[in-house]
């Protein structure tokens, strides 16, 4: 259930990246989730879908890249200026 608070942090980071780069509408977000990160990708994707809201991140899709280590990283943000 901690994936909810992780998704919340992630969405705030995505909103920051969008603002810094002048993106008005984020279409997709790439994260790497390691098998030893302590995070379940499906639970993270579900929490992300429930929590996303607002004009900038409200329709963002989450793309999870499964990795082998402990990483839990935001890798890219794609959107329209």
């Amino acid at each position, binding site marked *: *259930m901690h994936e909810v608070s992780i998704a919340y942090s992630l969405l705030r980071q995505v909103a920051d990246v969008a603002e810094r780069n002048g993106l008005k509408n984020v279409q997709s977000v790439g994260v790497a989730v390691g098998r*030893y990160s*302590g995070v379940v990708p499906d639970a993270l994707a579900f929490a992300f879908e429930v929590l996303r809201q607002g004009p900038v991140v409200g329709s963002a899709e989450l793309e999870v890249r499964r990795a082998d280590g402990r990483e839990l990283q935001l890798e890219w943000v794609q959107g329209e200026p």
Partner: protein
Amino acid sequence: MRIEIVERVLKANDALAEEVRATLDGAGILAINMIGSPGSGKTALLERTAPVMPPRMAMGVIEGDVATSRDAERVGRCGVPVVQIETRLVGDACHLDANLVRTALPRLPLAEIRVLFIENVGNLVCPTAYDLGEHLRVVIASVPEGDDKPLKYPSTFARASAVVLNKIDLLQATGFSIDAFAAGLREVSDAPLLPLSARTGEGMDAWISWIETERKALGKSD
């Protein structure tokens, strides 16, 4: 437009964790994040540790629970400075985070403490992702939980600096295999395994000397 970045997802938590670590380093304190299931004996281990900690390693405790200050009262009765964090006051959180620890620190007499134990909320999964600003992370498993736990919760065990196996006084009654547990642990981690019983006191010497050795290795001894 695609913006490439590499940013830890919990970077807000990580920044606060670095702040906590800097505060602790400034005060010469070694902090140990204790993670384990409910009932694994985290609090019992602290109760058994308090009377045998040498004065040069004076201990303090931060207790994390969803509700009640029962654990802080238990540890407090050992004459140890202790602060309770109740996560029901912050949305029933299933884990501690760096901000909760940061707000607890000013309520402890840091100048009197050399080793700070942070007892996480009883949970073998959720606390794993959160750096609290600790120097060491200890996973407390116990015999009645079964000898397959390192393989079933690899993320948790993979990040441990040491693994305590508590309640070894129950080995015979449960048919638990220390060899199987150790083999499972070796698959995910090379952390030392410290079998002990917080009830009988067996194995406590190795636990205390592990803390002392790590403290020296981290340059925290006076």
